[in-house]
């Protein structure tokens, strides 16, 4: 008889909470009558995310010293917990954002899949070997494929789904092949073991590492692996886009950091450069392409690519400070992007058509609350003071500078300068258009009151601005989290 290994349920608790939420929601879609289905499932999933956040907090508190569970298949450390908190909170906010999203009746499935995806990510960030890594990745990716394509009545949604599925499949195949090679080179799949395994510059190992970097860069949507991003972000339901832009990036980046630092320390000299290059390509590409966009979701997609560039900068520093910088950056970033997409979603529902810059005209005056929120997010992404975005950039830059990549800092500065043009352009449309342009907007007639979305926006703004004034606490936490990696 096989003795079943002891499972550390606390470490798994966030995942479990979300899974059960997802399961309940799924159940509810079947048993609960249609008129209250949406409410119930949403409530359940919201509760799930909140519990997950709380539990992750507890885990963070409990696991000061990182440990590896279940024969090195998952890690229980503060890095994972930190990321899980961000992910769970993001998920909760997204639930709020999607409350008034119009869709064919598959609400139950939507929420349950959202929870499932959340669970996948929450597990993913704690993956400690290549198998769990791959499986976790596929886990939330599959959920996202479905979510993206969920608005089956919109051709765009389906197209986005197909593209995401195919390109995503391609990417994960690459990742898988890479893992296979690494496995072949070392005979190990656990990160720590890979690091300690003998062959350092075995060609298999290197090729595998390259492919793994590629696969993860794909999920981070860093150039040149980003090309799916704009299409998918544009086509997907706005709430899903919000979730992807914030959560997927967070999960993927954290894992990126974990894999590279834990599993391939002896190849650091190569992958730091590689990551730095990828980062700079993303910065240049994302910002330049964003200049040409009219569709706001697309614009934000490109901006998210450039942000990926910034955060990869931090990873390429390969230092504790770099880790801190990345983790800090994630906080305001996810808040800002979720918030921004939330505003877009609201406008979308109000106008009933995709949101272009033109259709933002005058929003700032018609809906002061949304306007100011969007303003905050744009300035934050541009790295203006009074938002966490500024400190994020500062830390990333200083990390890169300490690592000696002053050229990277300069590229970052230039990219930021370019990015201003389109971020401010959004603000310009919000406030400074008048007369003819305004006719695109519905004259008067306030939109359906949407408290949930309002609350979500409020939360996002609070985090964005709060992370500016409360730098130190966040930074301390981030430092602890980063400390759980063997720098």
């Amino acid at each position: 008889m096989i003795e079943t290994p002891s499972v550390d349920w606390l470490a798994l608790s966030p995942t479990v909470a979300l899974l059960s939420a997802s399961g309940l929601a799924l159940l509810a879609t079947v048993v609960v009558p249609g008129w209250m289905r949406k409410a119930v499932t949403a409530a359940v999933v919201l509760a799930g995310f909140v519990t997950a956040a709380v539990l992750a907090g507890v885990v963070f508190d409990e696991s000061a010293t990182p440990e590896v569970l279940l024969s090195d298949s998952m890690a229980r450390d503060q890095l994972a917990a930190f990321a899980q908190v961000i992910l769970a909170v993001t998920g909760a906010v997204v639930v709020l954002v999607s409350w008034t999203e119009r869709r064919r009746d598959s609400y139950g499935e939507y929420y349950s899949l959202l929870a499932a995806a959340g669970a996948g990510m929450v597990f993913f960030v704690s993956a400690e070997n290549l198998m769990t890594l791959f499986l976790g990745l596929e886990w939330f990716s599959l959920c996202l494929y479905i979510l993206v394509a969920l608005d089956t009545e919109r051709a765009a949604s389906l197209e986005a789904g197909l593209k995401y599925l195919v390109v995503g499949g391609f990417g994960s195949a690459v990742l898988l092949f890479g893992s296979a090679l690494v496995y072949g080179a070392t005979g190990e799949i656990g990160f720590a073991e890979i690091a300690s395994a003998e062959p350092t510059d075995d060609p298999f190992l290197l090729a595998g590492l390259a492919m793994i970097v590629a696969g993860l860069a794909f999920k981070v949507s860093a150039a040149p692996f980003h090309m799916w991003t704009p299409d998918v972000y544009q086509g997907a339901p706005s709430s899903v886009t919000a979730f992807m832009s914030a959560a997927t990036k967070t999960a993927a980046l954290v894992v990126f950091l974990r894999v590279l630092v834990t599993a391939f320390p002896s190849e650091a000299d190569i992958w730091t450069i590689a990551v730095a290059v990828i980062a700079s390509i993303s910065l240049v590409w994302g910002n330049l392409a964003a200049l040409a966009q009219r569709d706001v979701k697309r614009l934000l997609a490109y901006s998210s690519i450039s942000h990926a560039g910034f955060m990869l900068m931090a990873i390429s520093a390969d230092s504790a400070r770099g880790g801190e910088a990345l983790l800090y950056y994630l906080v305001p970033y996810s808040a800002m992007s979720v918030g921004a997409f939330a505003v877009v979603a609201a406008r979308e529902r109000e106008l009933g058509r995709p949101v272009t810059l033109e259709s933002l005209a005058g929003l700032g005056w018609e809906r002061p609350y949304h306007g100011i929120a969007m303003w905050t997010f744009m300035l934050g992404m541009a790295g203006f003071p009074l938002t966490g975005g500024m400190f994020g950039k500062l830390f990333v830059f200083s990390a890169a500078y300490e690592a000696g990549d002053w050229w990277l800092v300069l590229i970052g500065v230039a990219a930021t300068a370019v990015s201003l043009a389109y971020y401010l352009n959004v603000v310009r449309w919000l406030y400074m258009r008048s007369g003819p342009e305004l006719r695109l907007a519905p004259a008067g007639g306030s939109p359906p009151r949407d408290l949930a979305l309002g609350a979500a926006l409020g939360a996002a703004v609070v985090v964005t601005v709060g992370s500016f004034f409360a730098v130190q606490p966040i930074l301390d936490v981030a430092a602890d989290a980063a400390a759980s990696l063997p720098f």
Partner: protein
Amino acid sequence: MNVTNPFYAALALIGNLASLAILYLLLAAEFLTAAQVLVYAGAVMVMFLFVVAYLGGRADAPWAGGPPLLRTAAVVAAAALLVEVVVVLGLAWGDDLQDPAQVADSFGSPAEIGALFLTDHLLAFEITSIVLLVAAVGGVVLGTTPEKEDD
């Protein structure tokens, strides 16, 4: 790979997979061989054929097409991938690929794999099940799209 009709393509794939199964067998992975045959030749392919049948002749799209540049680029890229792996192999050939480890007969037997799945790779196992569940849900949600003419 240049069959235009998905139906034949699918059948060809079955053949492909079957031969893979043989290879697995040679690699002393009996259980996997079985799984391969069942999962692929069975489930997956059946799904495929269903869909193909459902979609009927509408499905087949012509071979390649699109910008020629793209085509050449594709070929080059694929070739490059292949070549690289081969080169890597060549680099690594010398050292340890010759002498595979000696393994017991029970290597790759269902029992051992099952044991592993229930001990070391418990999580993997669970996740796999979750993934499958998700897939099922997804298939249903997407599959049951009502016909829509408008928009």
